[in-house]
């Protein structure tokens, strides 16, 4: 009796918690509401199964508790029941899988009008590169990264000349315009993740990965690294600002392009020292570690 009641309380408690929980997803700010919908669908089907199975279990506990001398039913198999349950489960699984595959199909096919944005991850921070007026990113290679060429761009590639460098943790995006995030890492695995955008993908050194989304709400969002990348993983944050065209263009015009960067670099050799500091990742790492020690 007691046992059954507690198990019943666990089930009811789970439902109550689910319905009245204050912990729920942060408001979506991208086009991927379809992902939320598939989650809700999974909740209905999966939650239904959970409740039914557990309630049946509780019923059995109440109804068939041990009584001296009672015999249990002897029925090794019931073909019809088993077949029915198999089909029912199969239908449920298909109902879950089909929408999931459709959404995934959208996820890996990037719309043609998407803006390319390269996210360059390093231990531990973010940098970005945007295509210039030609809308194309130049070829890049980690091998040739140097102080004069912090993104390792191929000097001979004309596409790269007007690429825009964003050497800070902050990225601005246009509202209602799809972006294709090209992920690049110069050291270990990272993952560019903004919970409000729902989407994520690992940045893998030695190759380029991608995903896309369409931000549809103005605001500032925190970027989190979602793939463990070493001791300061938790401190690897960035910022995404979604805004309208006016302020976006203003921000864009303030950024440096590859050609202006190189030109400036040749003009002013003194500047180089400062750049070394920015690019010297180890100094950055130490500052993070120091901060931690202070704490």
């Amino acid at each position: 009796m007691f046992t059954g009641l507690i198990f019943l309380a666990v089930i009811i408690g789970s439902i109550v918690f689910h319905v009245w929980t204050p912990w729920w997803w942060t408001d979506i700010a991208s086009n991927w509401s379809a992902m939320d919908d598939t989650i809700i669908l999974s909740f209905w089907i999966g939650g239904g199964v959970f409740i039914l199975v557990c309630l049946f279990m509780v019923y059995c506990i109440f109804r068939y508790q041990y009584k001296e001398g009672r015999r249990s039913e002897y029925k090794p198999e019931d073909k019809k029941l088993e077949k029915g349950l198999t089909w029912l489960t199969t239908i449920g699984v298909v109902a879950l899988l089909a929408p999931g595959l459709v959404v995934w199909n959208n996820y890996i096919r990037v719309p043609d009008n998407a803006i390319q944005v390269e996210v360059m991850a390093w231990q531990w921070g973010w940098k970005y590169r945007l295509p210039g007026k030609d809308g194309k990113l130049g070829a890049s290679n980690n091998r040739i990264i140097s102080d004069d060429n912090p993104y390792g761009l191929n000097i001979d590639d004309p596409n790269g000349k007007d690429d825009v460098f964003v050497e800070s943790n902050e990225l601005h995006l246009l509202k209602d315009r799809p972006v294709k995030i090209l992920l690049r890492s110069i050291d270990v695995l990272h993952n560019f993740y903004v919970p409000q955008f729902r989407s994520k993908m690992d940045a893998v050194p030695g190759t380029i990965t991608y995903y896309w989304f369409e931000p549809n709400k103005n605001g500032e969002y925190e970027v989190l690294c979602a793939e463990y990348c070493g001791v300061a993983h938790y401190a690897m944050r960035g910022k995404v600002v979604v805004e309208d065209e006016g302020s976006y263009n203003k921000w864009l015009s303030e950024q440096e392009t590859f050609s202006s960067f190189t030109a400036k670099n040749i003009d002013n050799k003194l500047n180089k020292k400062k750049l070394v500091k920015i690019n010297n990742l180890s100094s950055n790492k130490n500052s993070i570690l120091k901060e931690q020690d202070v704490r």
Partner: protein
Amino acid sequence: MSDELNINKKRKNQIKTKSSAASGRGETDIDYVRPAELPEQDLYHGHSFITKWIFCQDAKVIGVQYTLTAVFTGVVGLILSWMMRMQLGYPDLFPFLTAETYYQMVTMHGMIMVVYLLTALFLGGFGNYLIPLMVGARDMVFPYVNMISFWMFFVAVVVLMASFFVPGGPTGSGWTLYPPQAILEGTPGSGYGILLMLISLSLFVIGFTMGGLNYVITILQARTRGMSLMRMPLTIWGIFTATVLALLAFPALLVSSIMMTLDKVLETSFFMPTIIKAGEALSYDGGSPILFQHLFWFFGHPEVYIVALPAFGIVSDLISVHSRKNIFGYRMMVWAIVGIGALSFFVWAHHMYVSGMSPWFGFFFATTTLIIAVPTALKVYNWILTLWRGNIRINTVMLFCLGFIVTFVNGGITGIFLGNVAVDVPLSDTYFVIAHFHMVMGIAPLMVIFGAIYHWFPLVTGRFLDEKLGKLHFWITFLGAYSIYFPMHYLGFIGVPRRYFEMYDSPYMTSAVGMNEFISLAAFIVGAAQFIFFYNLVKSLRLGKPAGKNPWKANSLEWLTPDVPPTHGNWGEKLPVVHRWAYDYGVPGAKEDYIPQTTAPSEVKDAEVEKT
């Protein structure tokens, strides 16, 4: 049902006619079982203390040795989890918890619990103890190799524990050990720590292979007379399939360990592309980090089932015995175990949906993954249908089984979320994943382990464990663990990423602080409750109620040995002869409500047995 019956009848008739021709037996001999194919096994009996208890070749002693070693590592893992929860619940309170130590604890906790506790305990512990007893063998087929297997495992554990004491400490690369970070500066323990981990894993694989071959061959080739595969208890089916999986999956772990060791020591570039560290390019070039993930999960996913399948098998037996009812749909259960095992080799990359692998793989792996959901669901149905119309003893063992069903169904369903590729995108690498796998392969198998220990303790020691303490232990563990992991899913919905040393004050995460405190408190209590269990073990060893023979009135062979606890050689003079499956409970017409496997049909003439 009926067609199987007919096949059985037909076969029996064939055998009968054959035998009557051969040995002149009468047509009417319904008790006939084929004579032995193999001569008696040749056993080495130890004489000194060392050969009897330390370098012992008796599978039962080896099983206990495995269990004790695994439980010891488990306690280490438990303490590590406490320390992690201290940091997560009360971030600034403990100055000795730095990010380095936190990540080291995360890694060691994960690896210990998955490999050195659960795998070793289910296969090494329960496998060694139960396989020879349940299939009616005198011992494992290669007792000497079996002994070496345990000592290899022991050395692996020693090497693992040694990594706590080397300069730099144990590796802090997460239990998945993903390169490049696992072997680069910037990850704690990237020097000696990771090397010792890889060596320890390799030793474990070698040791396990020795044991695994024993388990498989004992089950396939050393069953007693009358014990056909389809009469084996589901425990054996679960352990058998899991062992086969382990023999085929551990090679991938061995290979990836060797390759990563070479990457570390010889600076080869298997998994290492061009890497810029501190503004300078390292000597690596052209390797593929994703390859490691493929190899790791080609091992890692079957590993999940290596832990789950023995739990499935054992819980089926416990439920059946304690609800005094035959297991519902035995054949379906067997096929489900085998099917899940086979499919588990085709689903590995569902751990890698957002790893940057070829995006087309998503379709393939989502489909195969959700196919696995069907046999798994059927197993759940069959468990609850076994309870249905049974005669359920609500004792500690049954409580743990019920706890298993609730946590397993819960965790299984969140598994469908994560296996469904598009749903996985927002949820992967968040606390939802943590909650899911702790529920489904942490708590659920642990429930079975506890249930199994309460069930078989009388066999191993001849005494019962204390029921009152047992029930207390169960309720704290079950309710506590459920209230740790059920709310944790919702942290994942918020978007809290896993492996974060602390959250800082991201605006939408402040609401997680309160929950983290609650979860930590629950974790401390659940952890502490395990010491009730250890106390119970020690106390009952001396003072427990004597159990006598077959105290649960079970059917399977392990309870039918002449001596309790069974001695070396298990069966005394004569091997048992099996006449039926292990689930003849509540057979109409029989005197008792159970018919042990060795009972010949002529002894229970009136019983209307359906399955044989």
